[in-house]
C-alpha cells in the first residue's frame, strides 16, 4: 500500500517535471535571462500598475517569440507591491536573494522606488524605476534646481522628474503670457514632490505663485480649494496630480466660472482619465509624453513606431482601448533592458558577474526610441523623456507645440 502511494507520487512528480521542462514552441536555445519586475497591480497606483503588468508580459512574449536576446529567452518574474513601499522592498529582496534575477525593472512610483533604491544599490543589482523622480538615482538630497551631485551606481531610469515637468509647464505658461499662478496639488507623496520642485524653481523662471492649495486623492468635491483660488488674483492655475480628483478639479473650476487658463502636470494627461471625463475637460492644457498623444503623434516623430506598436499590442491582447503611461512603463522598461542585454551579452549562469556586466550595458544604452524615452543614457543615469505641449479638444488630446526635452545638462 505504502509503496503504491509513493510510486504514484513519484509518477505525478515526473509528469509535472516533464510539463515544466518541455520546451515551449518557439523557445530559444540559451539559458534564460531572469529579469525581475515590480509593479503596483493593486492599491491606489493600480490603474497605472496593471497597465505596466500587461505591457511587460506582452513585450516579453514578443521578444521571446522573435528569438529572445542574444539567443537567450527572457524569463520575467513579476511581483505586486500593492502600492506600498514595504511590500515593494520585500518583493525586491525576494527577486535579488531567492529568484536571483539579473536586473529589476520597477517599482513604478517615487515613494516605493525611494524605499527600494538603497537596497538595490547595496545588493549591486540594476534597478530601473520607470516613473520615479530623480530622487531615486541621487545618493543624497541636492539643491534643486541644480542637477543632483552624486548618482547611485546601480539605479537607472527614464528622465522623469517634477522639475523637468515644471520646465515644460513654464514654457507653455510663457506662451500664454501668464505671470501670477495659483498652484493646486494632491496631498500625497507625488503631489508634494511636485510642489517642492515648483516652489524651488518658479521664481528663477520668472513666475510668482499667489496661492498654494491642496486636495486629497479621494476628493470628489474640489470646490473648497477652488473657492480659495477664485478669491485671489491669478493668471493661470497649475494642477499637480494624476488622479481623477485632478480632472474633477478642472471640471469644477469651469463650472464655478473660473475663466483663466488651467494647465496640468503631465501625469494628468493619462488618456484613460481624459476618455472617461471627456468633453468637460476641453481647454485643459498639459505637456504630455508621446504615448498620451497616441495616433495624434506626427508621422515623422521618432517615437511614433514604438507608440503605434505598443498600442497595437495592448489593444489586441487586453481590454484597454489604447496605450498609456502605465503600458509605457512595461514597454520602455523591458526594451531598455533588452538594449542593455544586447550591449553587455552577460552569461546568465554567473549571476554576480552578469549583474555587473548588465549594469555597464545600461550605462551605454544609446539612441533608444521608446514610447516615453528618447535618446542616450545621460551621466545622471536617465534616458530623456520628451514632453509635447498639448490641450484637450472635443474630449481628446491634441499636440499644440514642439517637443520639450529637459535634462539635467540644461541646468548645470
Amino acid at each position, binding site marked *: 500500500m505504502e509503496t503504491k502511494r509513493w510510486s504514484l507520487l513519484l509518477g505525478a512528480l515526473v509528469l509535472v517535471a516533464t510539463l515544466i521542462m518541455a520546451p515551449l514552441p518557439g523557445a530559444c536555445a540559451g539559458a534564460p535571462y531572469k529579469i525581475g519586475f515590480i509593479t503596483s497591480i493593486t492599491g491606489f497606483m493600480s490603474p497605472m500598475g496593471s497597465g505596466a503588468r500587461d505591457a511587460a508580459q506582452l513585450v516579453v512574449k514578443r521578444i521571446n517569440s522573435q528569438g529572445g536576446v542574444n539567443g537567450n529567452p527572457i524569463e520575467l518574474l513579476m511581483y505586486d507591491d500593492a502600492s506600498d513601499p514595504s511590500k515593494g522592498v520585500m518583493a525586491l529582496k525576494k527577486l535579488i536573494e531567492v529568484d536571483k534575477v539579473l536586473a529589476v525593472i520597477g517599482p513604478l512610483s517615487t515613494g516605493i522606488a525611494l524605499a527600494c533604491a538603497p537596497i538595490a544599490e547595496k545588493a549591486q543589482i540594476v534597478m530601473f524605476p520607470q516613473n520615479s523622480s530623480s530622487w531615486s538615482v541621487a545618493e543624497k538630497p541636492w539643491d534643486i534646481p541644480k542637477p543632483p551631485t552624486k548618482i547611485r551606481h546601480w539605479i537607472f531610469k527614464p528622465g522623469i522628474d517634477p522639475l523637468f515637468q515644471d520646465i515644460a509647464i513654464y514654457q507653455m505658461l510663457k506662451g500664454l503670457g501668464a505671470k501670477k499662478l495659483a498652484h493646486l496639488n494632491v496631498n500625497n507623496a507625488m503631489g508634494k514632490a511636485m510642489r517642492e520642485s515648483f516652489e524651488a524653481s518658479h521664481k528663477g523662471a520668472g513666475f510668482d505663485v499667489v496661492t498654494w492649495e491642496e486636495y486629497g486623492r479621494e476628493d470628489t468635491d474640489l470646490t473648497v480649494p477652488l473657492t480659495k483660488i477664485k*478669491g485671489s488674483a491669478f493668471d493661470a492655475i497649475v494642477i499637480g496630480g494624476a488622479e*481623477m480628483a485632478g480632472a474633477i478639479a478642472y471640471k469644477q473650476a469651469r463650472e464655478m466660472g473660473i475663466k483663466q487658463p488651467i494647465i496640468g502636470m503631465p501625469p494628468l494627461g493619462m488618456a484613460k482619465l481624459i476618455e*472617461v*471625463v471627456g468633453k468637460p475637460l476641453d481647454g485643459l492644457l498639459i505637456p504630455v509624453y508621446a504615448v498620451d498623444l497616441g495616433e495624434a503623434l506626427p508621422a515623422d516623430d521618432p517615437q511614433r513606431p514604438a507608440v503605434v506598436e505598443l498600442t497595437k499590442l495592448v489593444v489586441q491582447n487586453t481590454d484597454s482601448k489604447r496605450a498609456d503611461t502605465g503600458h509605457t512603463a512595461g514597454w520602455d522598461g523591458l526594451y531598455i533592458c533588452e538594449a542593455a542585454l544586447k550591449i553587455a551579452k552577460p552569461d546568465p549562469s554567473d549571476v554576480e558577474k552578469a549583474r555587473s556586466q548588465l549594469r555597464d550595458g545600461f550605462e551605454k544604452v544609446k539612441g533608444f526610441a521608446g514610447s516615453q524615452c528618447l535618446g542616450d543614457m545621460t551621466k545622471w543615469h536617465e534616458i530623456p523623456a520628451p514632453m509635447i505641449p498639448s490641450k484637450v479638444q472635443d474630449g481628446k488630446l491634441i499636440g499644440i507645440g514642439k517637443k520639450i526635452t529637459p535634462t539635467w545638462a540644461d541646468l548645470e
Partner: protein
Amino acid sequence: MTLSDQILQFIISGISTGSIYALVGLGFMIIYSVTRVVNFAQGEFVMLGGMFTASFCSYGFSLGLSVLLATILTTLVGMLFYQAFIYPIRRAPAFALILVTFGVSIIISGVAMLAWGTDPRRIPYFSGKEAIPIFEAILNPQSLWVIGSTVVIAMGLFLFFRYTILGKAFMASAINAFLASLMGVKTEKMGLLAFGLSAGLAAYAGAVMGPITFPHVGIGLHLSVKGFTAALIGGLNRIEGVIVGGLALGILEALAAGLVSAGSRDAIALAILLAVLTFRHQGLLGGAEAGQV
C-alpha cells in the same frame, strides 16, 4: 470673493458631500439596528451600484433603467451575502461578524477588479449640466439630486418603519429580537430584509453620486469609513441621527479644508469621531436604548 462668500461655498460643498456620507451611513444603520452587525462591506455595495449603473449605461440602457437594474442586482448581492455568510453564523459574537463583513468586502472588491478593471467609469448627469449659482457660490446640479435623494430616502424609511406592518415588524426585531419572535415576527427574515434594503440603498447612492465622483472599484473602503463615521457621530440607531452626522461631518470637513488646510480635514473628522465616542458614545442624537429606529 469675500470670506463670507467663501464660507457659504464651503458649507454648500459640505452639504453635498455630507449627503453622500449620510446616504452611506443609513445603510450602516439599517443593518446595525436589526442584526448588530457593523457591515464594512457597505462601501462595496455603493461601489457595485455605481459600477453596475455605469456598465448598463455603456451597454446603451437608459439611465433610469440602468439605475433600477443596478439597484436590483446589488440588492440581490446584499441578500446573498446575508444568506451565505451572516445567517450561518448569526449567533457568533459581533466581533466575528464584523470580521466576516471585512472579508466579504475584500472578496467583492477583488471580484469587481477582475470583472471591471481598475479604471474609473462615467455616469451621465441625471439632469442639467449647468452649475446653479447661490449668491456668489455654486451648486452642482447633480448635488441637488444627491441632497434630494437623501431627504426623500430618509423620509421614506421613517414612514416605512412607522406606518407599515413590515416596518413595524422590522423595528420590533431591532428593539428585542426574542420578544418580536414570540409575537410571530420572523426575525431571521428581517436580517435578510435589512441586508437587501441596505444594499439597494447603497447601490442607489453609488448611482446618484456617480456623475460627480466617477465610480471605480477602489472607492468602497473610503466610503465605508466615511459613512460609518457619519453614522457613529449621529447615532447608529436613528435615521435623523445619521443624517445630522453625515451633514455635520461633510460641513466640518469642508470648513476644515477651507479655513485650516487640506491635510487637516481627515484629522478633524477623526478627532470629532473620537470626541463623540469618548463623551457621547451613543452618538449626538442616539437614544439610550439601542434599536430605536
